[in-house]
């Protein structure tokens, strides 16, 4: 279990409980976090689940893999902290994770 905080573009903080093994995207969808579309349902095929990982957490979440990095080409305003939330797996280590939702996905 991990508690994840989504910070929307307007600065609203939404807290969610996420099960180990699920993805950060799934927890965003389950909690209706505005600004996460996840059109492809987590297939790493749409880049509409783009988030910025909070500075304090980038080391824990790690770097995107090659396929995710390719898909990030189709996301908007990509920064060094950019990740596709469907590719971040929840574990106890991520308890307290903070991610920021970009202005828009598509």
């Amino acid at each position, binding site marked *: 279990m991990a508690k994840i905080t989504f910070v929307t573009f307007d600065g609203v903080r939404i807290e969610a409980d996420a099960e180990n093994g699920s993805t950060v995207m799934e927890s965003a969808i389950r909690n209706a976090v505005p600004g996460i579309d996840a*059109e*492809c349902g987590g*297939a790493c*095929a*749409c*880049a*509409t689940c783009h988030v910025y990982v909070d500075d304090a957490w980038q080391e824990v979440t790690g770097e995107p893999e090659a396929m995710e*990095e*390719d898909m990030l*080409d*189709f996301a*908007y*305003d*990509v920064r060094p902290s950019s990740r596709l939330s469907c590719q971040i797996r929840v574990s106890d280590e991520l308890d307290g994770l903070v991610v920021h939702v970009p*202005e*828009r996905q*598509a």
Partner: protein
Amino acid sequence: MSEITKTDVVIIGAGPVGLFAVFELGLYDLKCHLIDILDRPGGQCAELYPEKPIYDIPAWPEISGQGLTDKLMEQIKPFAPQFHFNRMVTRLERQPDGQFHVETDEGEVFETKVVVIAAGGGSFQPKRPPVPGIEAFEGKSVFYSVRRMEEFRDEDVLIVGGGDSALDWALNLQPIARSLTVVHRRAEFRAAPDSVKKMFELVERGSVRFELGQVSGLTGEGGQLSSATIKAAEGETEIPVTRLLPFFGLTMKLGPVADWGLNLHENLVQVNVETFETSEPGIFAIGDINWYPGKLKLILSGFHEAALMTQAAKRIVSPGEKVVFQYTTSSTSLQKKLGVA
């Protein structure tokens, strides 16, 4: 106006559900034209997950998105459906005689007795990059695809993106453009290695300029671009640009379906579950685009809807004719249509 194509059924969308509808309609001798904005059949299965396995297609323990599309194409072949790709259906209007006119953005007109909307999650449309004010230049100096190369002759062309479309067009337009710049956010490309190599050869020769970064601003007047600002790690640079081609992939947008006067439920077309007819008689909606109580967005549900829709469509196309229910296993007349008897 171009010539009118007459047919029994126009299917809007060539996703898995639109494809299977050809089969069901074909068993009842209804001829179909399919229109899709994509350049190939398969809808979401082909565009979003061609290589991913699907596990819940009855009798196929595992089949990929592309595999399913290929099998459907094989299955409907006997009915010789006519495909019209790279076209968006923009208008749908009932004529005084009760038939429909279906119009595309390429100006074609289809006259049909029945319309089947199998538009899925909506039409795939290019993503618009997050550059302030870009809308004002679209169609005049910002394009999301190249329809006429001449529009780029002697222009300062800027291509954004790192996929095959971006690189293919960089290579194709470089000889006719006045200048050509490619902007991509990283040094790696997800494109055919040969195109990447060719592009970097042109960069070395000075024929193409490559910038690492993202487009952050555009300037120009009356829809005509004059320059673009490129934001890189080291800061911003402004370069002269008169044509911009952003390639950021596709996203699904409901699109024109919303404008056809049909009853909608949260952006989905409401249907009657006996016939899958919409609020307009003669217009049906099947697959992901429709809504009814209990709807599940599964390929399997779309297939079922196609079979039931066909019964009602047949009654419209051949009024007065008895609609006979038959099995493909035992009906010689169905087998003749399938070319197996």
